[in-house]
């Protein structure tokens, strides 16, 4: 085992994948200069240009700012013999290439009756929680979940980030990974040897009996904090990190809810049509008989992301908001001051009430 940061783990996975297979290439803006820290050898930001030296400019493809053709070209290259890893830097830029994602990447194999395969990985980082305002803070994975044909990965730890990225590169289908910048610095143990984590296998982060929390991306550490604080009150919370949203490990969630009878879903995406909505709907259909309380979603309210530090942080699922939600589902009196978590969840929807 060795200790790595989340960002370092991504760099290491990229390096291993590049070393393992000459048809793997990296395509993206500023990848040559290692601006985002994942094309420098997986060590530190100061390893500028390592990948360029190691793999050459034929395989490290520094692009113009042209997301639409970057995504489409990666798809076309994947259909004809390469296995590109595309670095789209921030997730907010994916919309620029939405047509390519939906109409080409997701559809080509199906439309052409299986003639195409599309081994391509699109990496992007969600920059929320860092005071950069509405244009850099998006968490758009729910949109892509609504597009059949894509696989969607949302790692929350260095171990998962590395293992899932290796699997993504191995996959013959298109994979989108949504990384959380706020986790970039998180450190964790990672095996020295190569390993893969299958897509579609949730990780039970913490066992518990009184309620299940399914937490996504940066909501995972928040859920752990909530579980720890409730443990002090003798409340035992199970925390599940699905790790991939498509495919989704329904069984792990259902099994847990069958045991606990209570579900909270913590999801940093906007509330309406979020991953949390899907998970809730799934359980309301398939584990209804086990449910002993309403399913509560802790999400980002349906508002855009404001810049001011006095406005932004409150919006994302936090330890206290998740704690509050768990107390609600287990029927405990809440302890939040007004204008706290409860209010946030009341404000959290575009539905008139």
């Amino acid at each position: 085992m060795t200790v790595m940061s989340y960002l370092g783990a991504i760099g290491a996975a990229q390096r291993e994948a590049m070393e393992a297979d000459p048809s793997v290439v990296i395509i993206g803006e500023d990848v040559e200069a290692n601006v985002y820290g994942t094309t420098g050898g997986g060590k530190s930001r100061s390893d500028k240009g390592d990948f360029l030296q190691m793999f050459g400019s034929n395989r490290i493809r520094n692009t113009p700012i042209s997301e639409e053709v970057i995504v489409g070209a990666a798809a076309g290259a994947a259909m004809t013999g390469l296995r590109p890893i595309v670095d789209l830097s921030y997730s907010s830029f994916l919309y620029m290439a939405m047509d390519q994602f939906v109409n080409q990447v997701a559809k080509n194999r199906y439309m052409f009756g299986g003639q195409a395969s599309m081994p391509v990985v699109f990496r992007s980082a969600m920059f929320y929680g860092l005071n950069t305002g509405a244009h850099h803070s998006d968490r758009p994975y729910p949109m892509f979940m609504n597009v059949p044909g894509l696989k969607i990965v949302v790692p929350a730890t260095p171990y998962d980030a590395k293992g899932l990225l290796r699997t993504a590169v191995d996959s013959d289908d298109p994979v989108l990974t949504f990384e959380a910048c706020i986790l970039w610095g998180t450190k964790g143990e990672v095996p020295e040897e190569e390993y893969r984590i299958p897509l579609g296998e949730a990780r039970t982060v913490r066992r518990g009996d009184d309620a299940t929390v399914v937490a996504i991306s940066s909501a995972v550490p928040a859920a752990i904090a909530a579980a720890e604080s409730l443990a002090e009150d003798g409340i035992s919370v199970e925390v599940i990190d699905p790790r991939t949203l498509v495919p989704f490990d329904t069984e792990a969630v259902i099994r847990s809810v069958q045991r606990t009878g209570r579900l909270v879903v913590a999801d940093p995406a906007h509330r309406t049509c979020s991953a949390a909505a899907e998970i809730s709907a799934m359980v309301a259909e398939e584990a209804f008989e086990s449910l002993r309380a309403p399913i509560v979603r802790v999400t980002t309210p349906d508002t855009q992301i404001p810049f001011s530090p006095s406005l932004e942080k409150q919006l994302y699922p936090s330890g206290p908001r998740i704690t509050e939600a768990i107390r609600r589902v287990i029927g405990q009196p809440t302890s939040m001051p007004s204008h706290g978590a409860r209010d946030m969840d009341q404000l959290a929807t575009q539905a008139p009430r």
Partner: protein
Amino acid sequence: MNLSPQTQLEMQRRMLRIRRFDERASKMVKRGQIPGTVHTSIGQEAQVVGACMALGEGDYMTGNHRSHGHPIGKGSPLGPLMAELVGKATGVCGGKGGSLHLADFSVGSLGESGIVGSSIPIATGAALSSKVLDNGHVSLAFFGDGAANQGCLYEAMNLAGVWKLPIVFLCENNQYALSTPAHTVTSGVIADRAAGFGMPGVRVEDGQDVLAVYDAVHTAVRRARRGEGPSLVEVITYRYNEHSEGLKLGTDYRDQAERAQWVERDPIVVFRQRLVDDGVATAEQLDALEAEVIEEVDEAVQFTNDSPFPDPSVAFKDLYTEPIGALA
């Protein structure tokens, strides 16, 4: 350009294959034998075939909604194409694609796109893999005058320019995008846009002359193959039929006299005459060629009629390469 008689006859054959295939498809869609809609290339055969014949077998190609001509021009067998239009299990895409989404990877046809402009980046990516893998394949992206106003074309041209990708951007300027005359929505000249993106841009004014198209595209393909990068070729041509047949979406507001003038310069008639005049073939040989093509189309229809529709469960296949849940 000195082309062998064989090559010239193959050009005529491919133009005829497109013409007869599309005439049949047009009839069938009107009779309800083909569901949905078809967009025919009738009138544009020289432009399609001139371009396709300038490519080699291993070369790649993408196209658009006006879709049948491209794979036919690239040499795809007609049976699976026709079966695809009808939605049969033996279709080239197993019935999943239909007219708008033909693809025949066996001849380098990487797919037609119902979304205007959307397949241009795909062709660019195929050129990228040729470059990285150094396998000598050239890509060609077919798109219309309408698609020439989609931004992704210029992103693609720029990327291909800086990376010197082996690709030809081929604009089929049939002077209309659906009901809209190109000159009313196009600022400047399409071919002239190449210069700003650092590549040659040529305009084939007589796109009804298959040899003229072949020459221009062949020059571009050779440049690409030499590693010198992309080119833009704009071909002026004309479609005879409605934009789209079967949907009854609005009709065409083109001047009938304009159409008549173009029909007079029909690419197949013109080239036939030239083949005779140049002593490449006799009228009888050309009649025989035409008869062969008609038979080929008849056989394609027969093949289609004899084929079953796909089982409903096929709707759940081919989304991924491996099963996800119940989906395979």
